[in-house]
């Protein structure tokens, strides 16, 4: 019982941070995915470019986020279902929100996940943030927040607002 309460306590700030960031992202009342893209682009200050990876050899990758000189690129596998692709693209956008949201978007008593040093050599390594190579607490915390945010955005954006995850994942 005590362990369960501790688990809940550890989870609550994640959900609170995710909810705060999702609802403070400026979107129209009836919002589409493009509205979210525009809001994130304005917040992050960079042009966003999406593309699909059509190579069938992708087995583990569900999304790639990279910073090129003149744009921020987001790649998702072409073979994924529309819903999963939507979730993956939204997940990557949520990373950009976490990185660039004003401090006062975070609920009192919580903080933005610590970002790696700007000159870290690991920025150019493809070590998945949720992999065993990236097991530092802050990366894992950001991943949890972002995953929660992506799910919440499916409720806030009209495309899948009236559906449930179970309908898509079974």
């Amino acid at each position: 019982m005590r362990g369960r309460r501790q688990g809940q306590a550890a989870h609550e700030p994640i959900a609170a941070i995710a909810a705060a960031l999702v609802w403070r992202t400026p979107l129209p009342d009836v919002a589409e995915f493009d509205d979210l893209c525009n809001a994130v682009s304005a917040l992050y200050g960079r042009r966003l470019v999406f593309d699909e990876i059509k190579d069938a050899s992708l087995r583990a990758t569900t999304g790639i986020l990279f910073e090129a000189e003149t744009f921020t690129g987001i790649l998702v596998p072409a073979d994924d279902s529309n819903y999963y692709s939507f979730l993956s693209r939204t997940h990557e956008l949520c990373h950009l929100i976490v990185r660039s949201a004003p401090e006062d978007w975070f609920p009192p008593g919580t903080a933005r996940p610590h970002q790696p040093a700007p000159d870290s050599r690991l920025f150019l390594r493809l070590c998945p943030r949720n992999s065993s190579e990236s097991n530092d607490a802050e990366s894992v915390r950001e991943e949890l927040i972002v995953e929660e945010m992506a799910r919440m955005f499916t409720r806030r954006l009209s495309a899948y607002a009236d559906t449930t995850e179970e309908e898509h994942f079974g």
Partner: protein
Amino acid sequence: MSESSAQALHGALAAELRAAQGVAHVNVRAWAERSEITHDTIYRVLNGKRPVTVVELVNLCRAIGDDPLELVARAAKRAGLDLGDGVDEIVRSDRARLALEASGLWDNLDAAYTKARSALSKTGHLLSLREWRAFVDGAGSHSLVIALADFLEVPADYLLGKTPEDEAQRIDAQLGLARSMRSLGVTKIAARSLDELEPEEMATVESAIRALIDKEEGPRS
């Protein structure tokens, strides 16, 4: 590898190539045609006037049905070298270079030395220029490689040539991708994935990023 050992190995390679030529009963002009290497170059290699490159060696051996690795082994034996150490140094040198390239430090090794010296001094290690050159040549001491592995954010066992082959291939792919991304002007990359990415998958990702950058910013020279 010392300079005298290197010279001895070059001489031994030339001698083994001459021996292989004799066994294959091939004249230099025919060998040049088959290997697509000019006969002038082959003459100079056989006479020890010019060191043979790895690519030339492979092509010369293939043209006469010899195994380049076996020829290198025979040459090393002829030169009195312990091949195990030599191969180890080559592997370690290649990995040091890749780690430096992935970090954007290879193009200016003097500046890289200054940065490495500064970083290592914080842990009490005074890096000499001689030690630095030994590291780049694949002959750095165990403790030095461990210190520089931390600086380069690469597993020390990889730089020491001690990781299992599949793990080494994965790190090779990681560092190769970082080198490629750097050349494309990419400053950050992150993946959301269900598992570790295998080298083939990293190559697919690299290709997709390159294609998108070409499309958005134009191809790079």
